[in-house]
């Protein structure tokens, strides 16, 4: 038995039965990282000493009979969630040396469970990207084909799960940043409802769209992590005081009575790869075969989602990233004598090209004379997209679609063509604009062996239905059991 290959559920059972210790498990994961990190590049930093110390504490708790679902489980954290005393870079030069004096709420929750923080995962700088190529620190490679991107922006979190370099991980999703890399790396990734999981201590990109969620080896693990990270937090004023169900209670074998919706606009989306189209079609048939009803739904404003998103997200980013001024934390160009010169030089040297491009785009959209035409208009189109979903969910429980139009593309293929890269977010970013939850679950492989994900979306706070449909589908297939050869 290779311990690093365990799921959270299996590892938890073995820890509970004292068949293994957390120190053995953590050591196995660290050894795995040592063996494959050079090829995959999933981590910005690996917390060797603190991880082993946390494992030791977990073992002591377990020996006293105190075990919670994540006690002793090695978890990777995307490098934009604050970890007290551990470097948190956002994959940016401007935060290269930032060591947070506090934990993000989700990190605190993992620690309260006795989880082991194994390391901080690579990402696109400030979560801006769909390929991890915008990391200022390193490249992450797709474990299924090292010449390809892992997806982004939570590419390191997805690659680490796929390559068994952690047992589970956390990512964040602003326009598809959990679901798309999960799809490209053949793992399960969920973006919860906006407000379901606290954003306190998550470095902000676009505050009305950002949401933290799990990336795991299967749907059961996803439910287990959701149970830990969900819930109201008084430190996040947008967190919602809504009861959290036990998500593992949705891991049941019955889809009868469930109705799935297929958006008619999605099948005609430009650039949809035939392998993706086929895999998703097969998945829909499979889910119908499991007893679910199926209806066609209409999301008429789909074609405008990308344009609306690429006004709203950069606008919010341009405001959020104003805090990096070289004064309170992060990089500072100390050679500049005036305050203005110091600001400008610090920011231009500290931010990479994609971040600067989005700050300029956002500042332009918000500037005098353009606000109504850009930000105002996009916010109205956002309302129409939300109404589309409301109408669609009147006739179905969940919506099925592809996650990304193609399997993982080659590293370097799109790096100088931002618009084409943005357009590949078509299936995922509507969920962020509407604040609804979405999950990516493995549903097949392309002719050249690359993983393909199925996206399932539901109404606000209906994560349970996502878990139920995803679980039933997963249990009737074996895509999630396949491992990349490294």
């Amino acid at each position: 038995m290779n311990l690093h290959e365990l799921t959270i559920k299996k590892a938890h059972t073995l820890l509970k039965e004292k068949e293994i210790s957390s120190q053995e498990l953590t050591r196995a994961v660290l050894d795995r990282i040592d063996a494959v990190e050079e090829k995959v590049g999933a981590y910005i930093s690996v917390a060797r000493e603190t991880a082993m110390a946390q494992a030791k504490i977990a073992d002591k708790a377990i020996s006293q009979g105190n075990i919670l679902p994540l006690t002793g489980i090695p978890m990777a954290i995307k490098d934009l969630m604050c970890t007290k005393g551990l470097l948190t870079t956002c994959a940016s030069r401007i935060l290269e040396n930032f060591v947070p004096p506090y934990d993000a709420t989700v990190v605190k929750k993992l620690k309260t469970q006795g989880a082991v923080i194994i390391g901080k995962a690579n990402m696109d700088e400030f979560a801006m990207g769909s390929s991890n190529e915008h990391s200022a620190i390193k490249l992450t490679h797709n474990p299924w084909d090292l010449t390809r991107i892992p997806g982004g922006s939570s590419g390191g979190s997805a690659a680490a799960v796929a390559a068994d370099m952690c047992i589970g991980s956390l990512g964040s999703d602003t326009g598809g940043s959990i679901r798309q890399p999960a799809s490209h790396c053949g793992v399960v990734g969920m973006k919860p409802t906006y407000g379901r999981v606290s954003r306190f201590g998550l470095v902000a990109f676009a505050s009305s769209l950002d949401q933290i969620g799990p990336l795991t080896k299967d749907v059961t693990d996803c439910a287990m992590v959701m149970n830990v990270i969900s819930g109201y937090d008084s430190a996040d004023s947008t967190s919602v005081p809504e009861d959290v169900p036990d998500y593992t209670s949705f891991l049941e074998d019955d889809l009868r009575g469930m109705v799935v919706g297929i958006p008619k606009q999605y099948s005609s989306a430009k650039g949809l790869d035939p392998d993706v189209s086929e895999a998703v079609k097969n998945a829909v048939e499979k889910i119908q075969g499991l007893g679910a009803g199926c209806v066609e739904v209409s999301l008429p404003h789909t074609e405008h989602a990308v344009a609306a998103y690429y006004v709203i997200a950069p606008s919010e980013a341009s405001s959020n990233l104003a805090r990096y001024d070289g004064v309170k934390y992060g990089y500072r160009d100390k050679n500049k004598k005036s305050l203005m010169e110091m600001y400008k030089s610090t920011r231009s040297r500290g931010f990479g090209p994609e971040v600067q491009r989005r700050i300029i785009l956002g500042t332009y959209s918000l500037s005098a004379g353009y606000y109504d035409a850009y930000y105002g208009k996009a916010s109205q189109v956002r309302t129409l997209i939300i109404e589309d979903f409301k109408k669609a969910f009147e006739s179905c429980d969940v919506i099925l679609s592809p996650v990304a139009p193609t399997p993982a593309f080659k590293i370097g293929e799109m790096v100088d063509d931002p618009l084409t890269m943005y357009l590949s977010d078509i299936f995922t970013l509507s969920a962020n604009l509407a604040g609804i939850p979405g999950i990516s679950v493995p549903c097949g492989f392309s002719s050249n062996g690359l993983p393909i994900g199925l996206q399932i979306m539901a109404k606000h706070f209906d994560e349970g239905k996502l878990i139920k449909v995803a679980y039933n589908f997963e249990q009737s297939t074996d895509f999630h059991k396949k491992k990349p050869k490294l």
Partner: protein
Amino acid sequence: MKITKQEVLHVANLARLDVDKVLIDKFAGQIGTILEYVDTLKSVDTQGVTPTSHAIFLTNAFREDEEKQSIDCNSALSNAPEKEDGNFIVPKVINS
């Protein structure tokens, strides 16, 4: 061209960025292409549509004005690029 080099420079200045001379032309082209695409929003009829800033119904999060423990001065300054006597150091802003 949807956005000129001068406009990019103007907006970059508003955002306190000193964009590399080499990058300006590239940015103007790329941002121009993105803005042209964004202009497709003009074809959507939004007459009378209320804009959305948050997709979830939110109310103001009020709490009692009680004193609570927050991070101490040393922790708050722990990442400061330049500091002295419990303060952040900034370049001189007022000429005497």
